[in-house]
């Protein structure tokens, strides 16, 4: 497993060479967060409490969402794997004595770790300062949130891995990715907290894996009763179940793909 740790740290270092992109990311996430928060404040002006959320909760969730964009990569980038399948570069990946899913997981965790430290943390801090939000006090909320970020990252990876390996069958995954980004944006609670959706719709969205990316981590930080099972532990269990399921499906499909795989190009 030393190799996976090495891959993780190389990716961490690789992303640290993209300084301008990182600064731009913090800037856009912060600006978009402020706009999004102001829109939601207007909504809560009309109605002070919606399904257990008050204005501060909604704003806090907006900045949780902006902070999560990097680690879970809701809007991409797709895993490099997608492109490598399309171009046939996957051939050299398959020559390595490491399971492709673990290889790409180590990659993605390296990227996510960098993103968390240099994109998420600054963006989240900007949000707390601009809106003078009192950060949650209870240590179990913070501990739960930390675990939730890790699990959300695993779910984000699990989803993006599936999008990427669909390329073994589809040859062009742009459609899959575009649909997924759109679905992920709304179904994760990224732009609008799921509590603002009509009840029936919210119920359905809370069953999908996307809710594990933003909605559930935000509710864990705020220790909301709307969490699965009504507790932080319930929220974490829901995320863990999706992470495990997605990774299991990914492993299964990888085995099928590599058995029948057609590596493109000479």
């Amino acid at each position, binding site marked *: 497993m030393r190799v996976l740790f*090495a891959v993780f740290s190389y990716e961490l270092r690789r992303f640290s060479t993209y300084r301008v992109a990182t600064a731009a990311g913090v800037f856009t996430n912060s600006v978009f967060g402020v706009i999004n928060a102001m829109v939601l404040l207007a909504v809560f002006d009309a109605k002070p409490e919606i399904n257990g959320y008050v204005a501060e909760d909604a704003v806090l969730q907006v900045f949780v969402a902006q902070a999560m964009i990097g680690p879970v990569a809701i809007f991409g980038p797709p895993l490099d794997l997608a492109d490598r399948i399309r171009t046939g570069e996957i051939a050299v990946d398959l020559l390595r004595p490491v399971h492709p899913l673990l290889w790409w997981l180590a990659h993605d965790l390296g990227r996510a770790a960098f993103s968390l430290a240099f994109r998420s943390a600054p963006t989240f801090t900007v949000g707390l300062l601009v809106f003078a939000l009192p950060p949650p006090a209870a240590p179990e909320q913070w501990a739960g949130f930390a675990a939730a970020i890790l699990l959300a990252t695993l779910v984000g990876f699990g989803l993006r891995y599936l999008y990427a390996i669909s390329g073994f069958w589809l040859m062009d995954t742009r459609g899959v990715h575009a649909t997924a980004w759109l679905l992920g944006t709304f179904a994760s609670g990224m732009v609008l907290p799921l509590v603002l959706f009509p009840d029936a719709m919210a119920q359905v969205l809370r069953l999908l894996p996307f809710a594990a990316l933003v909605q559930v981590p935000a509710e864990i930080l705020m220790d909301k009763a709307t969490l699965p099972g009504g507790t932080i532990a319930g929220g974490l269990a829901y995320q863990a179940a999706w992470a495990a399921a997605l990774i299991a499906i990914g492993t299964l499909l990888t085995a099928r793909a590599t058995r029948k795989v057609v590596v493109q190009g000479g």
Partner: protein
Amino acid sequence: MPDLPAAAAHPAPADPIVDVRGLGRSFTVSEGPFLRRTRRTVHAVADVGFTVPRGAIVGYLGPNGAGKSTTMKMLTGILSPSSGTVRVAGLEPARQRTRLAARIGVVFGQRTTLWWDLPLRDSLALTRHLYHVPATDHARRLAELTELLELGPFLRTPVRQLSLGQRMRGDLTAALLHDPELLVLDEPTIGLDVVSKSTIREFLLKLNAERGTTILLTTHDLGDVERLCRRVMVIDHGRLAFDGDIAALRDSAPAPRTLVVDLAAPTAPITVAGARCVAVEGPRQWLELDANPAAVIAAVAAEHEVADLTLREPDIEEVVADLYRRPAGERGRITA
């Protein structure tokens, strides 16, 4: 020494490192506009069989689309055969890909295993963990390869800033740091200049001579073949058209030998029996031979004042080109 039965005194040669029998791979390709799409089966490799003994350097040649890369992919386990069997280092590549990976080194000249954005040495360091090479062995081999392939000046350069030749040397190093028994190279000198090509060729010869590494390579560069391979296989339309040593390949070719004649003074094109003048340049004439050279040389010397004579064997390049050009039916399979 006690008496031994003859068989034990001369043990049978070790198993071949590559053993391919009746190997075939077809692809289904869809063509045409969306609604009138038709399906067609391409037989990229059809019924190929050969073995490679340990320690050999074998060239695998063929025109574009002949099935060379497809064969290499099946040998390395990244593509499963449609028919036939493959054994490499005693393993079945498609099913034991991961185990095989530790025993072989592979370079696809058009692709890289190196980390695009990181210094070359980081990618090389990774192979130690990838193949569980003890740190001291890794350091020793890296130092050796760095010297032989002259990697020193760019070990710290990000791979994206390397020239093609530098990158190729980096990829070769990455493929060799775990000291594989077999090195599979798919066009290792593609796009390289003369100097880089020769660095790589000399390196491969040395690797083969000193470590006994078996090398199987595809190439369009017949300079590679002439310098490196005693044996070549030629594949065309997915079938072996030739398997034997280079001399036999030359003999098999009807490509004519050429006699270059330097005369004392320019004259009209020479006419002698058994030869045809194909070019004249001042006092120098080129005669294509279709008979015994000795008779032609004697006849030329009898009629003209000759300053110098050279007999040119057909270039391996011409021989191979000729082999590709022959209609498939007529060609059959030539085995030497």
